[in-house]
Structures are given as structure tokens and as C-alpha cells.
């Protein structure tokens, strides 16, 4: 009987518990809070500071004194502890910077104090989110226990129908299977549809595997991934693949060719409807960005729709490239110019309003359409506001009309 990717990397059968030492440990603006937990342990030094990767992204630059203080504490901690993998506010969102900087590697074990740490499955890593106390203890001991997860296999077939993207697919998957369908499970995305996906597309799916409750969202690393890592990888690595006769908890099949644009409606990610059921709902703010859909490819799609057009006067459109590298790519390709001319506000790379802390908070009664991964009540501001989630194409089309709009009308 063969083993799944998760069983192989953790070295035991599903259901068993193992003690492991990860290759990298990610944290962001929460590093100050974690360092306070760490202080309770009475240890002076982090056991293995080279494993830490700290990326400031959640509220950057600091928008209030408390955030400034938080960042200051982190910078002090970083220099005291000799942490070399520190990325200050000018780099971008942790889940983009982490792989750009070559920490997300096939066959590596990565843990992070952020639920969307699942993202690096896109490059064939085992990566999962854990709690802050656990990260603090991990800093001190370099050891943590994990339960080896059972695995769901999601087989993706066919090619994209016009106007649909990886985001529509993952929303459809979550809508069909439910927000807790993969609770404590690993997910493997397989099939020709998955193998053909670009890295940007894979990242969308692995990122949002967290919204299915999954611990991990793995793709088989292919040549495209290896090429991306050329000259970038921080460590030597060896890809790990599931055995052909591995045992899966369940297998689901999704076909790209009969997909239409999808929208997750307030206030849960699995409240997903096809665009024709929600088109016409008025919106006040559009957000194109985040660790889910803030890459060059996403901005390119949005710019394609917004080129030589103007956003609707009743809507504000915020664009945030996921990282400085993506910002520069978009800048050099002229995308930012197109978006700015259309009336979009271009923000600096970071999480921006995704978590409702700054840069575009929603007022009571307002509705946003966002390319992010979560639409929980109050996440982007007032508890009386509402968030719809969709692809960058749907977001751009909706920006033109001030209403949720089918992007296929603009292609």
C-alpha cells in the first residue's frame, strides 16, 4: 500500500502523531505577540534563528502608533536574536515574498503563524498554519507535534472556459464541498488541469485550501516550478510525490470547461453562487490584491478589462500588488498606468484592507467586492458591511459598472 505526499514527508501513516522539526517558520506582524509568549518560556535565545522568516506585511507602513510600536518591537527582537531572514515593510505580503525569496521549496516542511501558510503547497511543500503559542514553543525548541493528515484528492480536468480563472475554480470547489470539508485533512490537486496551471494559479488554490479547513494544499512540482526556483532556492531540496497506489480519504473531480464565473457571497466563503445569480448587486468598493490574487497575472487581467475605460463614479477601486517585485513587473509592463488612468487607487504592496486594519475600511451599509480569500462578517471594517469574493476579472468588470458584473461581457 503506497503513501500519500503527507505520509511520506511526515514519515508515518495518516492518523498517527509525529514530532517534527520544520525547515522554515513564518511569522509576520504577529511576531511581537509571539515574542511575548516566547519570553514566558524563560529562554534567551531562539534555538535555530536561521529557520525563522519574519515578513512585515499586515499594516505597512504603520498607520497608527500602536502598529509603529509593534513593528519597532519586532525590529528590536530581530536584531537581538540575529534573525537574518527579516523582511521589513517594503517587500510585500508574506505569502508572496516567502516564495519569491526562495523559502517555499518542494519536499520541505514549513509552518507559519498564519492560516494561509497552506500557499506553499503550490510549490510542492508541506506547509500549514499553527497557533502563536505553538510558534513561540517552536522558536524555543525547534520541535512540534503534528498529526499526519488523511488526504482528499481533487482531480481537475479540462481547460478554462472563457472568463473563468483559478479563483472561480477554487470558489466552486469550496462552494460544493463546504468550508470545513477538509478539516484536518491534506488536499492534493491533481489531474491534467492542475498540472497545466501556472504558479500564480496554483498559489490561488493552495492559498484557499485553508478555506476548506485543510492543513495543506499540495501540487506536484513540475518543471515550471523547478525553473522558477533556479537561482532562488534557499536550500537544496528533493521533490516528494505521492505513490501511485496511495490511499486517499476521498477523490473529487472538477471540470474546468463547464465552469462559469463564481462569487462567494456574505458572510462565509462557501456561500458560493454562479455570477448570473448575483450580477447587478451594487457595490461601493473593489479590492484587487491580497495573497490570493495580487500577482502580475491578476493585475494583467484587470488592466485588460479596464484599459481605455473609466471606473464607475459610484465605486472606489483599490489595487495592491502582492509584493514589490510584482509591483515593479506591473509598473514596467505599463499595467499600473492603465489601472491608474481608469481611476484605481494604487496602494503599496501589503495586506492593505484585506484584514480591515487600514487603507480602505468599509462603513456600515457598504458592500465590497474583493479578490481576497475571506468574507467573514466585519473583516474589512464595519460589522454592518458585506464582502463578496471573486476573480480579478469579475472585480474589474464590476468596477466599470458599480455592480457585480459578469466579466465575459468585457472580454
Amino acid at each position: 500500500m503506497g503513501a500519500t505526499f503527507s505520509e511520506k514527508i511526515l514519515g508515518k501513516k495518516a492518523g498517527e502523531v509525529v514530532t517534527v522539526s520544520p525547515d522554515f517558520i513564518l511569522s509576520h506582524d504577529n511576531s511581537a505577540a509571539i515574542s511575548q509568549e516566547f519570553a514566558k518560556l524563560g529562554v534567551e535565545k531562539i534555538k535555530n534563528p536561521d529557520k525563522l522568516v519574519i515578513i512585515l506585511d499586515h499594516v505597512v507602513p504603520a498607520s497608527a502608533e500602536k502598529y509603529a510600536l509593534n513593528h519597532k518591537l519586532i525590529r528590536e527582537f530581530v536584531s537581538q536574536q540575529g534573525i537574518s531572514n527579516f523582511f521589513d515593510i517594503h517587500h510585500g505580503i508574506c505569502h508572496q515574498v516567502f516564495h519569491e525569496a526562495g523559502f517555499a521549496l518542494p519536499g520541505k516542511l514549513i509552518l507559519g503563524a498564519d492560516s494561509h501558510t497552506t500557499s506553499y503547497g503550490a510549490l510542492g511543500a508541506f506547509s500549514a498554519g499553527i497557533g502563536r503559542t505553538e510558534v513561540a514553543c517552536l522558536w524555543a525548541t525547534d520541535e512540534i507535534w503534528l498529526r499526519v493528515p488523511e488526504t482528499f484528492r481533487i482531480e481537475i480536468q479540462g481547460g478554462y472556459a472563457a472568463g473563468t480563472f483559478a479563483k472561480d475554480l477554487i470558489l466552486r470547489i469550496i462552494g460544493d464541498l463546504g468550508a470545513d470539508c477538509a478539516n484536518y485533512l491534506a488536499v492534493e490537486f491533481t489531474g491534467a488541469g492542475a498540472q497545466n496551471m501556472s504558479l500564480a494559479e496554483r498559489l490561488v488554490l493552495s492559498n484557499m485550501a485553508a478555506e476548506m479547513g485543510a492543513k495543506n494544499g499540495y501540487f506536484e512540482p513540475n518543471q515550471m516550478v523547478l525553473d522558477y526556483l533556479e537561482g532562488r532556492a534557499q536550500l537544496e531540496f528533493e521533490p516528494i510525490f505521492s505513490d501511485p497506489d496511495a490511499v486517499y480519504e476521498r477523490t473529487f473531480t472538477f471540470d474546468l470547461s463547464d465552469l462559469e464565473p463564481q462569487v462567494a457571497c456574505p458572510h462565509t466563503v462557501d456561500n458560493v453562487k454562479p455570477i448570473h445569480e448575483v450580477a447587478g448587486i451594487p457595490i461601493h468598493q473593489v479590492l484587487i490584491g491580497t495573497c490570493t490574487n495580487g500577482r502580475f497575472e491578476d493585475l494583467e487581467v484587470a488592466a485588460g478589462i479596464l484599459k481605455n475605460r473609466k471606473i464607475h463614479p459610484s465605486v472606489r477601486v483599490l489595487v495592491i500588488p502582492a509584493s514589490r517585485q510584482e509591483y515593479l513587473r506591473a509598473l514596467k509592463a505599463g499595467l499600473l498606468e492603465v489601472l491608474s488612468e481608469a481611476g484605481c487607487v494604487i496602494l503599496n504592496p501589503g495586506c492593505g484592507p484585506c484584514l480591515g486594519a487600514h487603507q480602505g475600511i468599509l462603513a456600515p451599509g457598504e458592500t465590497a467586492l474583493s479578490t481576497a480569500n475571506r468574507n467573514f462578517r466585519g473583516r474589512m471594517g464595519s460589522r454592518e458591511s458585506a464582502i463578496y469574493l471573486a476573480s480579478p476579472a469579475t472585480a474589474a468588470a464590476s468596477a466599470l459598472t458599480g455592480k457585480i458584473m459578469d466579466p465575459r461581457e468585457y472580454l
Partner: protein
Amino acid sequence: MRKGRVWKYGDDVNTDVIFPGKYTYTPMEPPEMAQHALEDLDPEFAKKVKLGDVIVAGKNFGCGSSREQAASCLKFAGIQAVIAKSFARIFFRNAINQGLPVIQCQEAVDSLGMGDEVTIDFSQGKISGKAGEFKFPRLPDSVLGIVEAGGLIEYTKQKITSRES
């Protein structure tokens, strides 16, 4: 190894019925937390539970919010372990990190009933009682160590001190 009585419940016991949301932001001492354990599922539980009792439940035990009190209130109520068909991911981690053993064992859940007496041998991975003997994957020593120390912070502190000395 201690004998305990079974408190049996169904599927999807969520963290709201284990430890009501209205108390989550009220600082509470352990005895008071214990008094609210399972308040919205079984009001008799907190009155009658004894040290060493065991909760046996169906699938997805502990689903819902990530509040750590859901695990610690059961521990403070004297529960020696929760046996379920499956656990919600965050509850599973919280439970162990708060020092409450969790056992996934479908067979035991199917066979055990309310009030049954059972003994759990963690080092052997075995539950025994009148209904028979049920095996479960033994937790590794480090994880058992966390449970025995009373939680992750205590365990980590002990481990660090013992390494230093």
C-alpha cells in the same frame, strides 16, 4: 491508568456548546470554567462529572471557534480523555496543547454507551471496558509529555530547564 465513566454524545459537538461564547472574554479561574463545561449540551454534566470520566462522541468533535477554553474547561472538569470518531483540527491541537488527551477511535465510539466504565492505557494505546478492548494509535512520548505536563507552555518550560541542567 484510571477508571472512568463514559459521557456519550453525538456528532458535531461544537465549541459553543462545550464552552459558551458569552464567557470567552470573561477571565475565569479553572473551577468556574469547569462549572460551565458542556453547559448548552448537557446541563447535568457539570454537576455530576467525576475526576477521570471520559467523553465519547461522534465525528467532528470540537468544531466551530478556535477558543482554547473548550479544551481546558473539560480538563478542569476532570475529564481524562475525549474519545471521538474524529476531531475538528483546531480543537485537536488545542486539546493536546492544553493538556487534554484526545483519542480517535471509531470502534470504541460505536461500542461504548453512556455510563460505561472504561480504563485507558495511553502508553499501550488501549481502551478497555465491558464492551471489549479497543486499540488506538499510541501518541508519541513527546506528545504524551505535553499532556502529562499539563500543556504546551509548561512542557516546553520543563524541557528547556532539563536541557540546561
